[in-house]
């Protein structure tokens, strides 16, 4: 199979134009929003300049993604895997330390965040792995175990930076990929159970922090002790194990035949959830706990933790249907909206472009997701389908987290919105991802 194809050859094969236009539209809107958002900052020129440099770079990345046959990532997945590890180890060794994490390569003319590229490479590697596992073995638990082994070095290195937001986006994308690849729903369900149990305990303990008076009650005290007292942990583990055995016995009496393994796994997952929660609880950074608190009670302290979300909502709400016009949003111009050109850029858009601007962005995102799904179903092989599913999962997560955060549906995670937020590495990586999708499209059946 020819690995390199000339641009001319590719151009003859049809690119998906709706996806291309939606992408261009978002990039254009993003550039406008960034220019408007940073207008009042003293270093606005530097930001705009960087973004204008990142744009052609990103379009170049798109062209590279488009012109490379995507199947090369499948064939050479070991190299891609090695590339990821090399980048992540490299950034730990040579990266610069900024804002509490070591996640930047600072080069003479520009800086880059390797985890952005790694995120997409990881999806390509997972897709390749799942393609190789074959459809029959997809149902086995061994697939999940092997995948876990494959990914643990990557996530381990990312957590060493640490780059929390990278995990937040990549994990759901991998789950989406697994789901679409036909993984056993029971195991995915167990994963979800694990996340729910861990999340439940984390939220409960944070809630106890917010309301210390509840710790006086019996239930509150038990919850509190669970996180800090080994005896309580052991007691709880026994209780869960007992319940698991009881459920197994009950089903046996009913003559409902279910593999014993299911009960053992369910029990183990609940316990893992508990200990995962305990780990999270005891190792959460103050600003991360603050975010959880804000999510639980955004109005409790409008000047404190909830301030950012509240100000973002004020910005959007005051924009109304038509918006205040570019460069004239008071909330963003006067600095009430925090991180206005990165995490909260949607608030700026909502204030200055109004409802129509927000709906336009949302619509363009949905259009991108829709085209990716269409391309996935037309792909000529399973690998193309998997790649599209992974990238779909990634953009879906981006969209949910960014819009949801502003609307108070999900906690603030500090995750940029691709194409709109300022951030060169993210822009380049996202454009490359769409290039890869276009490559899947150009190699579809019947072309």
């Amino acid at each position: 199979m020819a690995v390199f194809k000339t641009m001319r050859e590719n151009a003859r094969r049809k690119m998906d134009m709706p996806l291309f236009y939606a992408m261009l539209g978002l990039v254009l809107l993003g550039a406008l929003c960034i220019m408007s958002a940073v207008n009042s900052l003293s270093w606005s020129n530097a930001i705009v300049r960087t973004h204008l440099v990142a744009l052609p770079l990103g379009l170049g990345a798109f062209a590279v993604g488009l012109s490379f046959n995507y199947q090369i990532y499948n064939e050479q997945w070991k190299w891609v895997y090695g590339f990821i590890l090399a980048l992540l180890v490299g950034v730990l060794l040579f990266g610069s330390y900024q804002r509490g994490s070591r996640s930047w390569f600072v080069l003479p003319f520009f800086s880059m965040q390797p985890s952005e590229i790694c995120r997409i490479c990881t999806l390509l590697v997972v897709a390749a792995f799942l393609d190789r596992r074959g459809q029959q073995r997809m149902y086995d638990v061994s697939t999940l175990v092997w995948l876990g082994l494959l990914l643990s070095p990557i996530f381990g290195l990312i957590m060493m930076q640490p780059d929390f937001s990278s995990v937040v986006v990549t994990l759901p994308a991998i789950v989406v990929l697994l789901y679409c690849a036909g993984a056993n729903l029971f195991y995915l369900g167990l994963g979800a159970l694990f996340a729910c149990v861990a999340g439940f305990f984390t939220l409960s303990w944070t809630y106890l922090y917010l309301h210390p008076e509840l710790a006086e009650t019996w239930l509150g005290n038990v919850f509190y002790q669970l996180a800090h007292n080994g005896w309580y942990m052991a007691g709880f583990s026994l209780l869960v194990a007992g319940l698991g055995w009881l459920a197994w016995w009950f089903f046996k009496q009913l003559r409902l035949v279910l593999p014993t393994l299911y009960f053992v796994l369910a029990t183990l997952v609940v316990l893992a959830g508990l200990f995962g929660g305990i780990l999270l609880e005891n190792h959460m950074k103050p600003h991360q706990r603050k975010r959880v608190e804000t999510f639980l009670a955004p109005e409790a302290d409008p000047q404190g933790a909830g301030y950012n979300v509240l100000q973002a909502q004020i910005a959007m709400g005051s924009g109304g249907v038509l918006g205040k016009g570019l460069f004239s949003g008071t909330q963003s111009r006067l600095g009430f909206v925090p991180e206005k050109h990165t995490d909260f850029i949607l608030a700026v858009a909502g204030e200055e472009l109004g409802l129509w601007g927000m709906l336009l962005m949302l619509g363009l995102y949905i259009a991108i997701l829709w085209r990716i799904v269409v391309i996935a179903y037309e792909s000529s092989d399973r690998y193309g389908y998997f790649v599209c599913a992974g990238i779909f999962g990634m953009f879906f997560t981006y969209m949910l987290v960014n819009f949801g955060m502003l609307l108070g549906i999900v906690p603030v995670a500090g995750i940029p919105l691709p194409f709109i937020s300022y951030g060169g590495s993210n822009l380049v990586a996202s454009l490359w991802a769409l290039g890869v999708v276009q490559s899947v499209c150009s190699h579809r059946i019947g072309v």
Partner: protein
Amino acid sequence: MTVFKAHFDGRLKTLLTVALVAGGVIALRLLDIQVLRHDNYVQLAERNRTQILYQTAPRGRVFTTDGIAIATNAPSFSLYYLGTAHADKIYLQQLAKDIAPYLHRTTQQVLSKLEESGKTGKATLLVDGLSTQRAVSLQELQQYYPGIYLLEESKRDYPYGSMASHLLGYISSMTDAQWRKRDPKLGYRLNAKIGKNGIEHKFEPQLKGKDGGVYLEVDYRGRVKRIIQDKKWVPGSDVYLTLNFAVQQAAEEALKNSKTGRGAAVALDPRTGAVLALASAPAYDPNVFVPYSDQELPASSKRINEYNLAIQGIYPPASTFKIITGAAALEEGNIDVTRKINCTGKYDSGPRVFKCWGTHGPVDFFDGMSNSCDVYFYAVAAAMGPAPIERMERKFMIGRPTGIDLPGEKAGNLYGPTRRARNKTYWFVGDTLNLSIGQGELLVTPIKLAQFAAALASRGNVYRPYYVDKIVSNQTGKVQSVGQPEILQRADLQPQTYDTLYKALKHTVDDGTARRAKIKGLDVYAKTGTAQNPHGPDHGWFMAFAGRQGEEPSIALAVFVEFGEGGSSAAGPVARAMLEAYFNINAPTEPVAPHTEE
């Protein structure tokens, strides 16, 4: 059409459906925030970016007839802190240290105030009433601390201090009850000061202007970005009084320098009843209620004497009442004014011997009046009886308030046989004699006596005294006329009665007890009085009316000096000073330069 078919084929499509549903939920929430709750968020955004600093508008000024403002406004500055939760600690500590001296507080107190206002995120008034000088030095600090803001406001100022203070009243902060009863249309703020007495109270709605406001645009740190709107204040309406500045000033000066420094002087225009001067001593300086923040005032300075002796002090009119006795005799007693009565210093009424204050020998009506001979009037009254005197009292409305529009005016007391009969007690000859020289239960206020003098001067017009001429709106220029001449009653006596009285009173000035009021070029008519006071020194009275030679009288006045002993010696100089000031004679009284702030 795909190359592979599997049981999981639809999973990506399911996810797309999920994405569409999520998009729908997000769109609905956007609709909720950006359309349904748009107005609410617009308000919040506006509150975020604007800080309104109100500027107290200048109150209307108060002018005398000669156009001198006796109540005006002075610039005053307020220091605001535009609070923000994001200010850092070191900045605040430094700021607190630097501005603490201007606030008369410790650095720690200022710091906690700054931090507290940072939490609310609102503009906080740190100190108001800064003088121009202090404002200038604070303006320099404003360069270094962008969070503080100096605002020009207006402060009440009484340039002549205690001038007409009893008439003007004063302004001060609202009490709880006043705040509850305030007129919501006037837009009072909590720290507003309102008129508490006199003109300041009476014309509060007109005097109060519309406050201005500076609408500032601030960023999230509270730094002022620009002024969005500077809503200019509208000053209150100006009040024009009928007071004559020179006369008022002369009266106050002279009262202050009189024997005891306690008393009252009232001057009226006999042609209209307009008040030319109304002075009570001791007076107070209304400026003590509106000090600059750096003015050190003893706490006792706010314990002012609000007692307005001119309208609230009631005393026996003493010998000035002999005019009424004389008028009664001329009208009804059928006396021969040239007939002489021998004054031996005492008068034997039968049960009791009444004394005269001197021994005058044979005196006729004119000598009796000019020397204020008691014996002459004892004899006249004894012959005439008390009833005509009481009737004459009623003609001049003795015992009734003058009706001046000031709160708390006392009526005084009418004295006579009819009044006594109402009380179901007897009337004795001694009562008649006491009445004839204005002693006994007879009581009048200084303004009553001035009204009486004006009635004499106008040959019988008992006017209601008024002191506000007009109110001129600074906003529309509309002139509202307030005071109008109003004749309460006519004292219709025969013309020759007035002629005789005029002659007698002129004689008193030319060659009698009221010689102190003799001024070249003027026709002055006057009468003195010394009210006997069983509890201490006697009180001095002096009533007069005057006009330029050959012209009708244009000023009528009454002066009272408490414990002044002699009417002529204590009250006379005050009256003379007022007359000189009014007719601009001898010492042309220049208005004293307004007091200047240090």
